[in-house]
């Protein structure tokens, strides 16, 4: 199971994802610079959190034009697993790999704290080690995590069971239907605002995020 962590200028959770895959999950992993184009040797791509290109425009709006993104699309078309975390989720929506968009948080502030998310679909490559309704303690850290989409898209997401995670209890950012993470129709592309890599060691207060990474490994084996 070989992971690749894509590095855009301004990515800042790239090291964290790399560390968790390498040292906690003990899987092979490499950094992929945004101008590289070969992805064929990889099984799972991680688009990490951060502020790609500073996100001075709209989050992820510039990163979608990175040379690597065309190949990320091809990689996903071929069935490769892609997980976008936080800024990675924003990039995936901007690039059209996932529907909808992420607006500024309701309170207009950046929010960094632990939240509880609920598993809504355990039949994906990212949740096969979880069960529906399971609660996970995973932190969020974003200024623009307020998921939105039009009515037709929302009902399609529901019909296809593409909503993978929702916030349980307090909805921290105003996301429509408390959506915290969604996947594509084919189920091989996941975007989520919470950071599973920040909840993968007991020292950090939670290991719940590890179950998502373990699901990915299980899906490929």
């Amino acid at each position, binding site marked *: 199971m070989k992971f690749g962590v894509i590095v855009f200028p301004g990515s800042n959770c790239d090291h964290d994802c790399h560390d968790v895959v390498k040292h906690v999950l003990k899987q092979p992993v490499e950094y992929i610079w945004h101008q590289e184009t070969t992805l064929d040797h990889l099984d799972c791509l991680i688009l990490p959190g951060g502020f790609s290109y500073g996100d001075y425009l709209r989050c992820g709006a510039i990163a979608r034009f990175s040379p690597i993104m065309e190949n990320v699309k091809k990689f996903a078309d071929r069935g490769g697993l892609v997980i976008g975390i936080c800024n990675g989720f924003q990039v995936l929506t901007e690039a059209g790999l996932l529907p909808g968009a992420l607006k500024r948080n309701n309170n207009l502030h950046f929010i960094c704290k632990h939240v509880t998310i609920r598993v809504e679909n355990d039949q994906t490559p990212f949740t096969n080690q979880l069960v529906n309704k399971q609660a996970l303690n995973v932190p969020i850290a974003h200024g623009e995590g307020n998921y939105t989409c039009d009515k037709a898209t929302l009902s399609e997401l529901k019909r296809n069971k593409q909503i993978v995670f929702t916030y349980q209890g307090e909805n921290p950012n105003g996301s429509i239907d408390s959506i915290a993470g969604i996947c594509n129709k084919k189920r091989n592309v996941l975007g989520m605002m919470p950071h599973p890599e*920040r909840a993968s060691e007991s020292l950090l207060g939670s290991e719940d995020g590890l179950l998502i990474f373990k699901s990915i490994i299980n899906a490929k084996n």
Partner: protein
Amino acid sequence: MERKVYQELGLKDDEYKRILSILKREPTPTELAMFSVEWSEHCGYPRSRKWLKLFPQTGKYQSLVGEDAGGFVYDDTAIIFKMESHNHPSQVEPKQGAATGVGGILRDIFTTGARPIALFDSLRFGKIDNPFNKYIFNGVIDGIQFYGNCVGVPTVGGEIYFDDSYSGNCLVNVMCIGVCPKDEIARARAVGVGNPIIYAGSKTGRDGIGGCSILASSEFEAGEIEKRPTVQVGDPFTEKCLIEATLESLKTGVVLGIKDMGAAGLTCSSAEMAAAGDVGIEIDLDKIPVREEGMEPWEIMMSESQERMLLCVEKGKEERILKIFRKWGLDAVVAGKVLKEKKAVIKCKGTVIADAPTEGLAQAPIYDMAFKKSKVKSQKSKVLSGKNHNKTLINLLSDPNIASKKSVYEQYDHMVQINTAVYPGGDAAVLRIKGKDWGIAATTDCNGRYCYLDPYTGAQIAIAEACRNLVVTGADPAAVTDCLNFGNPEKPDRFYQFKSCVEGIVDACKYFELPVVSGNVSFYNESPKGAIYPTPTIGMVGILKDIDHRCSVPFKEEGDIIVLLGHNKEEEGELPELDLDMEKRVQAACLEAIQIGIVKSAHDLSEGGLSVALAECAILSGKGASVNLSDKINNASLLFGETQSRIILTIAPDSIFSLSDVAMLYEIPCNIIGKVGGKSLVISKGKKKLVNQPVTKLAETYFSAIPNLLKKA
């Protein structure tokens, strides 16, 4: 030269004469500008340097001093840290002022080759019921989150205080900590005649010109908004790329020296790199990437545009370094070379526009400042006068100086880099060091009111309390950085405060075997209303030998025993006394108890005394406690007195004998005062309940106070 010209740049008559004697001729405009910034208080410390030399430089661990940022070595790892102020820029333009404060201190750290792993912000504002103070407060917080979150360095701690003395002159002190293998520390010097000097990072613009000589080196008068163009503008995305490109360049081994362009920009970095390497330097201004056409040479030399570095590289290897910076989308050019003769030569359009000895530039004059103690006014708080202790406790918990700062630190990414083992909101932040079984704890501390009442003791209390903050997490205090914020040093009473605080820090640091490894002086913190409280902010880093034995504030389990180390007493003056010997023993006992693994929670007693400390342990855990006290002192002192050298611990009932042994060894008072449990905090004396409040009510008060104040103002 006309007097007016050099006076406008902040130079005095004597200083101008000194320049004439160094150059043996009249300075060119560029030279004059260079001397003015190099000799400003902000860069050259002419008024404070004499006193700063008193700071101890050695401690329990091998210390690293002498560069922009200092640190210490533990287990072959260099832990580099420094705190710096950005007070005046933040008062003039809060968001950019605070943002560039974060950016500046980050560069001081990664320019040493250390990756920044944590940021702390020690902030002081006027009271936020005033709309302008609220604007400053919101702007500063916004600037910190804007810059810190984007660069991907967690903001894990700090302090926020509100007091009228900071109205009109806020304080924004930022500390950054970085780590690297001790053999990979980079030096801020130019070496090897003929080696190329590389300029890398952002383009140079007209922002921040005179930031240090004009803005930072005079007090605020009316019309301070006009100083806005002297504030720099921050670009955290470029900084993030600069961090990565710099660290990648340093890994090549061909970078011989590196310095960031901070205060006084290119002038300071070029002259100081040359002076440090005992060489000269030549810079060709035509090579410097600029943002706009037609910039004057002196503007390029004095610009404080952010996110720029100067590197000295092995001759022939420059292309390798240029390539790394360009990969990260940054400008990078060879802009000069190392000279044999010890002078700074600046060229523009083929002609030499400055040619000054580097030593003369880098050696600012030293002044003996007059000082005189003046009378202090009582600073007594009205909160404590009432007889209703429940009400007093609620009032204290809703006082913005004590109330939770959660609504602020939740706006900062405090988890990125996945090292944060104890989150903000406690006494100190704890971070692991990846790949090691040890970790670090760090804190910032200062009580300006104490320092106003008695600068010497107040400064000692700041050191003692910073140590206590670290010890309660299980860390051994290792080294200090300080950010010395004072009023106008040319006024003898202000300089007395500075001198006495320095002496207090010196003596306390020697007592606790702590070196002062880095720091910063910020004078002229005055508004038309007067000077700020003397505020020598202390930043301190300690070592947790085993990160698994880390402690935090919240109570852990019902039935645990609450123990007080140290003793309660009735203070006679407004300022609590400090017995350094008792302090040291209480801390040693606490640390040993944590290290042998019997302590479940620990909290230092500070503002608001015993009852506030107990309330915080309860609030943060959601667990109540019943406490019974028997001290024969008046109830207000017992509950709210700020007597030093006290810590509350919780332990399992069967650990009490082990704890008593430790307390006996260090000969300190150690008393069981209560038990964790229930849904309320109950504090009694004999049969009389002095305090009885549901934890939910305490929590509601504690967390909502600051958000409510902000809504109102």
